[in-house]
């Protein structure tokens, strides 16, 4: 059987390589474009939430000044912007996505810090006028510190456990004079992590147990246990009634 001669030198179809290159490059450009669009959308979304918080705060403030006293019939926690905590989480997500040096992120963080301070002041004023004592934690951190990461986890867990607890977080590295002033007022050195609860400052990592031993938080804890116990007693007694009724 005679076979034809093996193939001569093979040709390379360069056009196929070029087309593949163009498609791959197209995918790359699209990926970078989509990534940018998502980032811009996030920045815009955060900005709009911040604007609405700012409006809320301004409105409460104005109300305070007009009445020269606050309306103590309101629940103390609801006049403060409840979205602030969620905002903080989103911002820290943005930090990891866009990088700490991103000018948008830095600007949003500054704005957020100012809103936190205003919220804190408003809460204080409300507390003074209405004779209530909301428990607040002021927390100074930096991004490149391992203990701060741990402290962040502990505070997140505490915030979930005690919904009335208000945590204000401040990046000590953020170049903002209001934060520096806040540090001066609360008599805090530059060390991080530092928590200010009541009139005391606690420097270095504080575990959940440590924090729950601090008097202000302990009160919150005791109150919660008491509330839970009474709620349980109430539901138990109602269950009892129900079961008695069914027995009859």
């Amino acid at each position, binding site marked *: 059987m005679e076979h034809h001669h093996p193939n001569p*030198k093979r040709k390379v179809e360069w056009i196929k390589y070029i087309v593949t290159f163009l498609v791959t490059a197209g995918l*790359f450009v699209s990926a970078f474009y989509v990534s940018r669009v998502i980032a811009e959308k996030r920045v815009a979304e955060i900005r709009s939430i911040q604007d609405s918080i700012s409006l809320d705060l301004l409105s409460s403030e104005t109300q305070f000044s007009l009445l020269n006293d606050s309306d103590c019939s309101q629940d103390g926690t609801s006049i403060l912007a409840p979205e602030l905590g969620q905002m903080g989480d989103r911002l820290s997500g943005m930090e990891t996505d866009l990088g700490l040096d991103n000018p948008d992120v830095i600007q949003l963080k500054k704005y957020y810090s100012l809103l936190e301070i205003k919220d804190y002041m408003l809460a204080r004023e409300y507390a003074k006028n209405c004779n209530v004592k909301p428990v607040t934690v002021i927390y100074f951190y930096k991004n490149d510190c391992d203990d701060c990461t*741990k402290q962040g*986890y502990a505070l997140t867990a505490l915030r979930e456990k005690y919904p009335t607890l208000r945590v204000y977080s401040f990046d000590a590295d953020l170049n903002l004079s209001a934060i520096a002033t806040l540090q001066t007022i609360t008599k805090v050195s530059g060390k991080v992590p530092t928590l200010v609860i009541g009139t005391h400052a606690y420097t270095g990592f504080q575990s959940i147990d440590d924090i729950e031993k601090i008097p202000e938080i302990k009160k919150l804890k005791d109150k919660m246990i008491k509330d839970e116990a009474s709620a349980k007693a109430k539901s138990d007694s109602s269950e009892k009634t129900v079961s008695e009724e069914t027995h009859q």
Partner: protein
Amino acid sequence: MDVVLSIFTYTALFLSLYFQLFLLLTYFGWRKPGMEDRPGYRSDADLPSVSIIVPCYNEERTVKKTILSLLALDYPREKLNVIVVDDGSKDSTWQVVQEFADNPSVMLLQKKNEGSKFAALNFGLTYANTDIVGCLDADSSVDKMALRYSVSWFSRSDVYGVVPSMVIDSPKSIMQYMQKVEYELSTYLRQALHRMESIYVTPGPLTLFRKEVFDKLGPYREAHHTEDLEIALRMHVAGMRIAQSKESLVYTHGPRTWPQLLKQRVRWTYGFLKNVQDYRKQIFSGELGDLSVFILPIGFISVIVSVISLPVLLVNLYSSIHKEAVQIAVSGIHLHVPMLDLFTVPSQAYALLGFVSLAILFMTLIIGRRVILKKPIFSFDLLTLFIYPFFSGWWSVKSLYNAILSKKEVWASNQK
């Protein structure tokens, strides 16, 4: 460091997407003309005669099944010879195969072991007097129709070698499940390579050659213990076509444990690196078409990428485990319910590109499983895709290390 890492990440992503897209384009139509059809033989009388060499070294447990599967092939009996070469087994292989001593289709041969499979193959080749010769490892078995499908490719006068679709037979360990998925992917890969005339390995399980290949090009060579890769490159240099018969199923057992698999893969990867080096003149001159300008270079690059990826992957794995451990230590175990919204959807360009690459990989797997092997798409063994890069990184590191070391030795001996 961050800049170096992102340059590496995006370069690796670009190369792998380019490779994936190139193969897809090839698979879906942009192929060499004339690599599609085979006329086939008009009748059984026209079929070529075939010898299949079964080299065995300590295969007492599997060799019987292998020979029985060959004898059960749908092929005219008088045109099929099985040549069993006992390569100096220390176990009872020779006793086991005596069962076939009276079978006219089976030839039993014995030789002294010389420490490499190529010698056993060459020994068997000297006894083969058929149009077609092939070999089958003694731990593999063939589907009844495999030979008929493969041989039909020889009805084309320009095809000199035919490789089958390999399937991992009854996997038991995680390592074997991992190989099962890998082989299913490589079924697709081989089909795409077939369409680019770029199949560069003619592996042990049922590859067939025209006898003429060995008459013209000489017998198998030691070739860094990868004689199946060297003969394929030698055929390419001689301009001989190699086809894949995707319908020809061959069942093979992958190494069961990690040390065995590592040994096999280091041999393969090392053999690849060294043989490509040996044939660099022909490769760099561009004589071999797509194989020269794309497939072999990207194979080389992928070894290097996989070497660099290993530490990157390990560091990432460590830092995410560490982060999770710190969080659990501080605040106990929290169940995060992931919510998909504007803020949780991954947005970095590399993550998006990674998704595209994964999607293509998945599509590839569907083609391999569903279209070629006609098997279901989903199964739990898909999860092994996530551990694969760690293991392949490991064997790449070891192979590259060995390849570089032996290069130094060669230099030293040349200098004498």
